[in-house]
């Protein structure tokens, strides 16, 4: 397997040691010394496997530090920062004679991935380092009965920013399951541990790593109920092609991680990053975590996995319960859909002649639809009546008395999967004129999607941008920072007969305005708004909102102004490759002088290639008494 020039010498030393120490009770210590010597000679602590098992990440000045923030993860007090010391302490710990109990394990079992890897590297002599039975691990593994590993990606949550990026988890598919019984598999999840009810506190502490992140397990049906039923999120399941030995290495490592605390950082050391670290342990050649040094957006991590040739065997689409419901409601003839709605609302009784007059198969379909609608509304917290549970049961009982033969239409899989959408970082170069002056501009956006970006693979109407920086050269004003958009979120959620979501937006950052003397003062602005949106079929959607905002600038006295106003927009997918966005917005701020800040804009984007688009934007603005117009064209490249 590997050639070891020191092996002979070490064997001699060992022989001497064993002969010399044969009568001593501390023979194990001598063998431990010998193993340490050999591990050092092989520089095992520098091996990628060891680095991955201990979650070491390179830090500044050539130092190294484990991402695990828990002394229980290390055998050496210096283990978090010293891979060699940890490896030596681990080898010595394997000689422990601790017996397994429900709350304690022998280090060989507690760190079973380390044990098995080091055993394969150093060829432990079972006579001198007796192997401990790991009954708890073996029972756990037997119950998982692992045959495959699937990366599960619940997509963004309709109109909920709490999960606009999506989430990822792993599923261990048992050999005793099939596609129809996959609910019985186990999921491995990594999440922040918190009951924090205040989103602001949650966001802030999460950004700073203020929560403990931990791995946990639960039956997959618990996760499906959470994502598909409660949160209306479509789920994509990426079945991975990992050899059984790889899966075992990963599970051995998962076992080690069970009780371990990792500080949870929303941006980088988050759920998706930690799952990639498990896949790296399974296949150290993948180097997945190294692709995400700064932040790990779940969809990007899924893309990183699908980018590896042959790693994904197949992809399964699991539409959310609300997706199915919307599809079935649209599939049903209008008269049936109406009847179902009145049944669900309790306006028509189950023994009404209008229902009895229908043929059995149609009656069955109406009852199913009525149940699904009412149950959806109950889950969404929109059906409160005390009679709702009883009505739900009555609908089911009535349905069970009809033949079981209704063909159930299932929603088709979207043509573009989330991992096939555009990449999430964007670089744009462009030129145009503003206030009669020519300019050239370079823009960088860290992540992730705006309304005009190519839509396939993303949720319609959902925009999240963070880190949007523009540098502009104006022929009159020279080279300057034009804009630093920190966050810009739009959640435009059209309403229909069934779902009545609220649309909203929030953004803040720095941008330049224009003064009467043609200078370009920088101001900080933040705004938020709520409103309603209407779908225009497959073509697009329109919305209107009420907005409030704040501007901060040295050119006002006082330097802060609060404002309020309105905004509206119209988004059209003219063709699959050509999108058009018309928008208008006007806020009035309480500052000295004219406080109006208004714009009318028309933007369009044409997809040129999967990760290349051309955007043309034109707007007219009036800000604090100054009016000017801008038109620019940009070539946009999506990457990462």
């Amino acid at each position, binding site marked *: 397997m590997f050639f070891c020039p020191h092996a002979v010498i070490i064997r001699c030393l060992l022989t001497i040691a064993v002969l010399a120490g044969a009568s001593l009770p501390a023979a194990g210590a001598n063998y431990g010394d010998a193993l340490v010597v050999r591990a050092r000679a092989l520089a095992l602590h520098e091996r990628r496997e060891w680095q991955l098992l201990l979650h070491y990440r390179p830090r500044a000045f050539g130092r190294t530090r484990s991402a695990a923030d828990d002394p229980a993860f290390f055998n050496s007090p210096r283990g978090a920062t010293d891979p060699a010391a940890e490896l030596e302490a681990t080898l010595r710990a394997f000689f422990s004679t601790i017996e397994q109990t429900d*709350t304690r394990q022998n280090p060989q079992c507690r760190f079973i991935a380390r044990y098995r890897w080091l055993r394969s590297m150093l060829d432990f002599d079972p006579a001198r380092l007796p192997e401990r039975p790991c009954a708890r691990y073996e029972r*756990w593994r037997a*119950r998982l009965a692992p045959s495959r590993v699937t990366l599960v990606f619940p997509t963004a949550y309709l*109109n909920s*920013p*709490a999960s*606009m*990026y999506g*989430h990822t988890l792993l599923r261990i598919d048992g050999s005793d399951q099939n596609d*129809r*019984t*996959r*609910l*019985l598999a186990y999921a491995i999840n990594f*999440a*922040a541990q918190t*009951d924090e*009810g*205040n*989103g*602001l506190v*949650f*966001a*802030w502490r999460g950004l700073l790593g203020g929560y403990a992140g*931990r*791995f946990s*397990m*639960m*039956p997959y*049906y*618990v996760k499906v*109920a*959470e994502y598909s*039923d*409660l*949160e209306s999120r479509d789920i994509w399941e990426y079945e991975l092609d990992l050899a059984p030995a790889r899966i075992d290495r990963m599970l051995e490592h*998962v*076992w080690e991680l069970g*009780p371990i605390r990792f500080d949870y950082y929303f941006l980088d050391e988050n*759920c998706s990053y930690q799952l990639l670290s498990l896949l790296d342990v399974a296949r150290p050649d993948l180097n997945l975590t190294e692709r995400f040094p700064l932040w790990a957006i*779940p969809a990007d991590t899924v893309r990183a996995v699908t980018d590896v040739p042959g790693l994904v065997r197949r992809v399964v689409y699991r539409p959310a319960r609300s997706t199915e419901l919307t599809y079935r409601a649209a599939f049903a003839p209008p008269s049936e859909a109406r009847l179902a709605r009145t049944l669900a609302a309790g306006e028509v009784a189950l023994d009404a002649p209008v229902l009895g007059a229908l043929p059995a198969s149609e009656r*069955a379909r109406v009852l*199913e639809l009525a*149940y699904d609608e009412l149950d959806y509304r*109950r*889950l969404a*917290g929109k059906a409160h009546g005390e009679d709702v549970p009883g009505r739900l*049961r009555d609908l*089911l*009982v009535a*349905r*069970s008395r009809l033949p*079981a033969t209704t063909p*159930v239409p299932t929603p088709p899989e979207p043509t573009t999967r989330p991992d096939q959408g555009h990449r999430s970082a964007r670089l744009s170069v462009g030129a145009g004129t503003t206030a009669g002056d020519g300019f050239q501009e370079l823009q960088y956006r860290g992540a992730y999607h705006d309304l005009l970006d190519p839509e396939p693979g993303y949720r319609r109407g959902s925009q999240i941008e963070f880190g949007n920086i523009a540098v502009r050269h104006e022929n009159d004003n020279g080279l300057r920072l034009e804009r630093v958009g920190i966050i810009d*979120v739009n959640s435009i959620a059209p309403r229909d007969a069934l779902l009545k*979501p*609220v649309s*909203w937006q929030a953004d803040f950052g720095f941008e330049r305005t224009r003064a009467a003397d043609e200078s370009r003062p920088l101001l900080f602005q933040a705004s*938020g708004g*709520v409103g309603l949106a209407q779908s225009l079929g497959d073509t697009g959607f329109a919305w209107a909102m009420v907005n409030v905002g704040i501007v901060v600038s040295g050119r006002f006295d006082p330097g802060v102004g609060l404002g309020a106003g309105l905004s509206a927009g119209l988004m059209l997918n003219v063709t699959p490759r050509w999108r058009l966005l018309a928008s208008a917005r006007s806020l009035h701020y309480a500052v000295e002088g004219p406080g109006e800040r208004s714009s009318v804009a028309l933007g369009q984007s044409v997809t040129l290639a999967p990760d290349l688009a051309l955007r043309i934007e034109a707007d007219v603005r009036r800000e604090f008494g100054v009016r000017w117009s801008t038109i620019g064209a940009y070539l946009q490249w999506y990457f990462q």
Partner: protein
Amino acid sequence: MIMRKTLIAVSLSIASTLSIAAGENNVGSCGWGTKIFTGQSGVFPQALAGITNGTFGNQTFAISSGTSGCTQDGTVASSWQTAAFIDGNKEKLARDLSRGSGESLDSLVALMGVEQQDRARFVQVARDNLARIFPSSSASTDEIRAGLREVLSADQSLAVYSARV
């Protein structure tokens, strides 16, 4: 606004009163159903939480947290698997049964080890007795299990499965 997402205990609401044989840990101690998702209230706090990519996933149990309750190191103990599944899928099971097909029903049938040749009969008998298995709109897991057991034992070819509920 509002998207006040209250704690929904719905299909996974585990009756805290559920208790089985004295001295045994009951399904309720699995804990994953009691609080699936405590949502954030208000639009703007959500906005901020949104950009942070967080999940509000409440932890269920640590993988190596010992063997208390119905779980052992993160997996459901064999003797509790069917009970836990019914507990976590009540509404969906009732829905699948009313139609005679569905993923939850298939999973239950597999979990109970119903032989291939008995499956159609199992589904038909359970379906015909839906109102007995789910005696009320707020039937507890225990009541559902008792109902299913009763219905199965009354059927000659399915009686063998009543012990597996």
